[in-house]
């Protein structure tokens, strides 16, 4: 029988996450980027990542001996939803643990796991993800950054772009071509390297969400062969698995829940809730559905079942809701809904920022159209 109620342990875990998140508030308020960042999952903060690590929140699903808590992905999603509700800047957490850390845990060699996972869990080692290239966005399999084996090293040349958090990260997770004969999906491998390896140059530039994205130039970068994640030439499988994790955006939904609560409160304070109840109700329904899609995808990952279509649905539902909520909130609030980046404004000036940043949510991590293709093909079996 389906039972979608939280267990007592899950309720306690969320309450613990709530108390911890509240304790970070002074750190957040002191950070000007936090105030203008319109999407918490794109928020960059090394300090917050360190605090998360210190308090044992990174690597929740990993074994205890490597710094984890042995929890399920569903539990982790419930905690991330709570982090989101407090608008913690989570980019480095999500990259280092949820997408890349979990892929290393699944595909990495025992030595690589031993070396990288414990410091990730402590919040001392952070990752960015170098998949996209100027010529390879939706068509990721056309990537051209190349790694050539020389003895016990790979030598990498190439150019990555739109790399979130690369200006802060300690290491980079790279999708590269390792075979000149095989094309497209075959011949891709995944490597990890410290970002200060000679030959890596990072340039950051400002983006609409309120923070930065980066370009990463790779010029004769020497990477130890032992830093290969998964099998040589079989990196596509690793990349796809990484995306399944990335696309469960529970934290985003927590942030949207905070906006929705704030919106309802503000409309009540200003005697406008009565006329808006239908629209607020519909948004609440959409949020509840998106949360369940997200938890369902996490459950499939827990059970080791195929999760591509379910996580694409989770991601698309969250992205669409982010955009709809931003639009509706401005519509319902009127001119005060345009306020942006001012903690003293209604809803702490988050609505304007959400409007800016949410336009990227149907692009990053696979555009809406690519997610639709995944749902149609992998979910519905259409060809």
């Amino acid at each position: 029988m389906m039972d979608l109620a939280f267990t007592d342990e899950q309720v306690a875990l969320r309450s613990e996450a709530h108390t911890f998140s509240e304790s970070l508030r002074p750190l957040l308020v002191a950070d000007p980027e936090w105030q203008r960042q319109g999407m918490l999952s794109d928020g960059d903060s090394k300090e917050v990542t360190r605090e998360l690590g210190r308090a044992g929140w990174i690597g929740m699903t990993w074994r205890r001996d490597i710094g984890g808590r042995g929890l399920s992905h569903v539990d982790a999603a419930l905690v991330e939803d709570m982090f989101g509700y407090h608008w913690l800047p989570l980019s480095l957490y999500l990259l280092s643990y949820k997408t890349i850390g979990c892929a290393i845990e699944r595909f990495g060699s025992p030595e690589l796991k031993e070396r990288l996972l414990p410091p990730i869990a402590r919040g001392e080692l952070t990752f960015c993800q170098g998949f996209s290239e100027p010529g390879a966005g939706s068509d990721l399999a056309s990537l051209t950054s190349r790694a050539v084996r020389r003895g016990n090293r790979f030598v990498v040349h190439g150019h990555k772009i739109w790399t979130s958090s690369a200006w802060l990260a300690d290491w980079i997770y790279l999708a590269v071509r390792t075979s000149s004969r095989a094309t497209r999906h075959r011949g891709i491998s995944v490597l990890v390297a410290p970002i200060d390896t000679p030959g890596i140059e990072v340039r950051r530039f400002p983006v609409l969400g309120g923070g930065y994205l980066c370009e990463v130039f790779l010029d004769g970068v020497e990477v130890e062969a032992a830093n290969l994640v998964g099998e040589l030439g079989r990196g596509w499988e690793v990349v796809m698995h990484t995306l399944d994790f990335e696309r469960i955006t529970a934290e985003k939904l927590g942030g949207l829940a905070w906006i929705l609560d704030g919106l309802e409160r503000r409309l009540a304070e200003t005697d406008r809730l009565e006329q808006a109840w239908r629209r607020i109700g519909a948004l609440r329904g959409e949020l509840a559905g998106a949360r369940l899609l997200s938890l369902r995808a996490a459950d499939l990952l827990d059970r080791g079942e195929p999760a591509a279509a379910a996580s694409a649905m989770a991601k698309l539902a969250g992205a669409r809701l982010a955009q709809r909520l931003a639009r509706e909130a401005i519509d319902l609030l009127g001119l005060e809904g345009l306020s942006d980046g001012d903690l003293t404004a209604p809803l702490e000036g988050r609505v304007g920022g959400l409007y800016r940043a949410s336009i990227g949510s149907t692009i990053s991590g696979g555009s809406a159209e690519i997610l639709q293709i995944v749902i149609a093909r992998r979910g519905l079996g259409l060809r």
Partner: protein
Amino acid sequence: MRFDVSDEHRLFADSVRSAIGDWEPPRDPDLGGWHDDRDDALAERLAATGWAELWAGSDLLGPAVAGGLELGRAVAPACLIDEAALGAPLAVEGRARHGLQAKSLALPLRRGGLALGTPTSDPQPELSLDGSGTVLLDVSIGGELEPVAAHACWSAWSAATLAYLAGLAVRALELTVEHARTREQFGGPIAAIPAVQSRLADAALAVDALTLLAWSSISDERSLPAPELLWAGASCCEVTASAHQVHGAIGFALETGLHRYYRRARAMHTWTAAVCAATH
């Protein structure tokens, strides 16, 4: 009925376009700050085209539409419309746009009324999604315009605003079609992908309807065609959102400037809706 733009309006549009030239607003890489894109030099260049006299208060609003389209294409400051049509920066819901230095303000009143007012408190800059120099202030209402004069002002403002919204959408679509033709993925231009074509076709439909609505306002007797303005704002927002979707990540980088269309569309729509509500 005629669906072609007259030579006279085309000429006026050309002169506005050359007055705008390659105008760019002050850059605002630090989003979430306060910024005002008011530009006196641009206002002077426009004044030399006869911008305000040619259309403000006139029965024939062709120049307002022809010029409004050009202002929208360039994401030019909204005060160029407010001041020409209403005589002062616009103030509604306790805010004024481009109101930092304003001595007088234009206030919408119930049933299509219009009054001029003066600020009675120090204007407080409000950090805002868009760079329209929004300030929070208190205003005391001065003289109310005669209904005929108010009607003429709102007709002109509506025509120019509809055209501005259309202009934003027209340019956002042009940039996007250009991008779709040149951006290659999966072995060809993304413009060849049916999902991209569907999205661009929807945007084209909206852009054509917006442009026709703007021109139709020349002969519209109503002072504030609220339904058209409300639809136009929402529709312009959708076109600019589609423009971002088709651009992908490159549109998210501030340097491409696409974000100016997206942010201005939402701000214009919200201000327009506030005026429609206040004059209802």
